[in-house]
């Protein structure tokens, strides 16, 4: 008898000691051959892991744990405002991507090209009016939901001690949401857009030292024109979507980790 330890992973020896039919033997041989090369076992483990994650149960919330639902059920609709903002953001992103195919950010011409493209989306494009309407309403609803979400968090004290970081993130997201809206409603280049842009430029210029630099950076000059629209367009469709999506993911990730703060 050998003193050498038996190799537990010697699948050949294990196969040999078993009394198997031809089919069983060839199946196992094939399986072992494939597993050696492709590590099928790892994928099976991943699948098993996924199974348990899908069947994960959410922990009981505070109100469920202490059976307080009879006192706090009327709070519950207010707890959906964060998800409503996210849903409206997704709807706005999808409809905005479609609008992007037909819009062009140009102030050229007697009637600006940007304005003309919006008009043509509304008048000529099939479902174009609906598309613009969806995008606009999704944006309005998102801003409203974000404001109300902040009020809910304030009045239920959900910003308190372990959640300061998420509150700060939320304030940044609120500012970015408003900026998203601002850059968005400047794009049609109508009277509202132009004069709201004028307010923005004057606000930027009024700041001492860095004001003119900031106005040049954000609005492409001290008066409104093609560079302004160009910059608002890039901010609205390229910069803000990435930044806001990343911050929303972080915001929700932290809520996921810390749990929702319900009123006690």
């Amino acid at each position: 008898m050998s003193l050498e330890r038996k190799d537990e992973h010697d699948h050949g020896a294990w196969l040999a000691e078993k009394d198997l039919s031809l089919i069983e033997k060839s199946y196992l041989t094939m399986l072992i051959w494939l597993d050696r090369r492709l590590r099928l076992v790892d994928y099976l483990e991943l699948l098993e892991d996924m199974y348990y994650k899908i069947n994960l149960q959410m922990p009981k919330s505070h109100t469920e744990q202490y059976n307080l639902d009879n006192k706090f059920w009327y709070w519950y609709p207010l707890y959906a405002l964060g998800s409503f903002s996210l849903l409206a953001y997704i709807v706005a992103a999808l409809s905005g991507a479609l609008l992007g195919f037909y819009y062009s950010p140009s102030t050229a011409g007697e009637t600006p090209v940007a304005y003309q493209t919006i008009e043509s989306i509304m008048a000529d494009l099939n479902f174009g009016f609906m598309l613009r309407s969806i995008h606009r309403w999704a944006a309005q609803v998102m801003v409203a939901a974000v404001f109300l979400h902040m009020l809910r968090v304030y009045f239920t004290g959900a910003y308190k001690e372990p959640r300061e970081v998420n509150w700060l993130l939320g304030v940044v997201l609120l500012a970015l949401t408003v900026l998203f809206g601002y850059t968005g409603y400047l794009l049609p280049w109508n009277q509202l857009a132009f004069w709201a842009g004028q307010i923005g430029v004057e606000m930027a210029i009024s700041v001492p030292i860095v004001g003119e630099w900031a106005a040049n950076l954000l609005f492409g000059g001290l008066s409104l024109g093609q560079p302004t629209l160009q910059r608002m367009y890039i901010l609205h469709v390229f910069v803000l979507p990435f930044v806001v999506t990343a911050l929303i993911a972080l915001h929700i990730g932290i809520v996921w980790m810390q749990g929702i703060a319900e009123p006690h």
Partner: protein
Amino acid sequence: MTDTDTDANNDVRTDGSGTGIVAPDDEVPTWSERKERTTGLSRLTYEYFERARREDQDLRQESSYIERDVLGFPAWPHETIRNLALASFFVGMLLFLAALLPPTIESPANPAETPSVILPDWYLYWSFGLLHLESLNPELALAGGEKIMSDQLYGVLANGAVFGAIAILPFLNKGSARRPVEEPFWASIGVGGVIFAFTLSLLPIEAMFPWDVHITFDMAFFLPVIGAILTYAVLKTMREGYMYNLNKRYYRLRPPR
């Protein structure tokens, strides 16, 4: 009573193997006595249950076993389908709203023609209102009544101050209170802030009201204070009154910080 019995009672068991709520007394036969009496099928049943219980216990004692409380609904399918249903309902409402109230498009941008009322979109009214605080911008008497900073800069700084105040909130208000009745002061600050956002929104269009513009300006600052005082009074009353008594139990339940 022997020592082992006392130990068994003090042991916290979660596997259902305890004696239950009725303490065994001398008349109740012990498990071993019962075991000796039984024969045949009941004996087999007992032995099987013993084995099964043992197996459960071994599984529980494995290091990889994590005992959990009774939890909520499973993520799949309950939570997932419920959330999908809520999300579809909400998106449906959004589409309905979009179909019902389509947006208009006003005249194209015209730098030569200033509209009678210049306004941003509605969610910036409060911010635009802060730009209209020029009469609060202090004048320096020594410099012949000149202002230190421009009215516009003053408004921009007011915007910054509002965002700053919101941002430092969690560092000012500590503690574990979670409901307006528990902290009437902070709740009244909140209500005052909400009313202030509304009254500020009226400042850019103060000329459109049929009364003197100064009244709108004064109201912008008085109404939030009045609202805050009312909120404070109401919440204090609720706290002193039946709400507090009703919920006293839950205040006491909360673990100390």
